[in-house]
């Protein structure tokens, strides 16, 4: 069996046999990797909490014969303690991890996605403030990286420019914002479209400073809806504590 090194964020884990787990990582160099962590559920496991989502770890893998590798060694790069200590941050982190898990391809290197995830987790781990837009911004950036960045400057269907017509609806399957004549999908306010434009058009840092408002909620709901359309499945983590 051959060994290889990489860095990765633990996305999710599930139980295997008596004391093992399968851990799914988003790695910097090998895309999504599924690997067995032996004995990890024992209290005295040498892995401790290092392979728990959303930890960013430096890893040594044994290459398996099938689709599962084996985690040989793990050292934490960042364990994002503030995320572990706060239910809201934890839910946000899980919402991002879930989308990455659904988007990333196994063994298809995607260093940009890994870097973007680590950067988002770092922002989320800021104890001082938590942006109501972080998960939404992450979803929009992820959709853009996947080649589904929404059209915002003109009607995605008839190409009428935003300067000439009001864009009143949004449907990612149509390409983005839609005019009154072409409208379908969700209704959208001009303020939400403008905020979305800032997120995708180089104004991310400023957008993340926005306080919680009807507009940030609208952009967040639109992000979840569009991501779900793209993945063709419902996201779980975003909704789990909705009515809590």
């Amino acid at each position: 069996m051959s060994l290889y090194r990489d860095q990765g964020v633990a996305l999710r884990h599930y139980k295997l046999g008596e004391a093992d787990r399968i851990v799914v990582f988003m790695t910097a160099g090998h895309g999504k990797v599924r690997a067995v962590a032996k004995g990890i559920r024992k209290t005295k496991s040498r892995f401790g909490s290092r392979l728990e989502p959303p930890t960013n770890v430096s890893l040594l893998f044994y290459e398996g014969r099938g689709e599962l590798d084996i985690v040989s060694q793990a050292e934490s790069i960042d364990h994002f303690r503030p995320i572990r200590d706060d239910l809201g941050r934890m839910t946000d982190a899980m919402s991002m991890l879930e989308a990455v898990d659904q988007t990333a391809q196994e063994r298809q290197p995607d260093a940009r996605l890994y870097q973007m995830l680590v950067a988002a987790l770092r922002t989320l781990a800021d104890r001082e403030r938590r942006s109501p837009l972080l998960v939404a911004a992450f979803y929009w950036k992820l959709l853009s990286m996947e080649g589904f960045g929404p059209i915002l400057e003109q009607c995605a269907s008839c190409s009428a420019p935003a300067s000439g017509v009001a864009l009143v609806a949004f449907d990612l399957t149509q390409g983005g914002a839609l005019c009154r004549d072409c409208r379908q999908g969700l209704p959208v306010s001009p303020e939400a479209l403008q905020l979305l434009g800032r997120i995708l058009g180089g104004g991310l840092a400023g957008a993340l400073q926005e306080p919680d408002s009807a507009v940030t909620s609208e952009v967040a709901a639109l992000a979840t809806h569009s991501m779900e359309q793209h993945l063709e499945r419902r996201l779980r983590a975003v909704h789990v504590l909705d009515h809590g």
Partner: protein
Amino acid sequence: MYAAPVQDLIDELGRLPGIGPKSAQRIAFYLLKAPSEDALRLSHAISLVKERISWCRRCFNVSETATGDVAGQSECEICRDDRRDKTTVCVVEEPRDIVAVEKTREYRGRYHVLQGAINPIEGVGPDQLRVRELLARIDAEAIVEVIVCTNPNIEGDATAMYLASLLRALPVKVTRIASGLPVGGDLEYADELTLGRALEGRRELA
């Protein structure tokens, strides 16, 4: 294709946790080859457990139905024990965690089994757990302290924080079991989160 009864057996076995199609097939053929009385002992044990064992109506531990009990109305041995402290409740994820806590011989209160933990990525939320039932017990049983004894992993942490946020509104003391270093282990192997929490939970030496 196998004869229908064999295929049914393979399908049923394959629905068990941790059993893939290959293992299901292997077990099915083991049972086919085994002497009848061995295989029937297994089937008898399964029917007996389904007949006699149910969830404790108070704490959702496993509970043996006493003769004369209405199904689903029985209480477990711990809840029936009058010597135990009825004002303290230890919240665990699964009945097997009760066994682990009982082995310490350090705890004399009652329990509450959530029957799982919050797991956002798997879509397991509070509605799928016995959370409402726990809240209802606080007032009804005049509970003074709730000890949250969920696993020290991400799902257990999420569950503990969620329960704390709900219980804050009630006149009850909420504590969480300390997490720290396993006794008998070496400090240098401890991960950062464990060591950090152990430092926070330090105690004054007498």
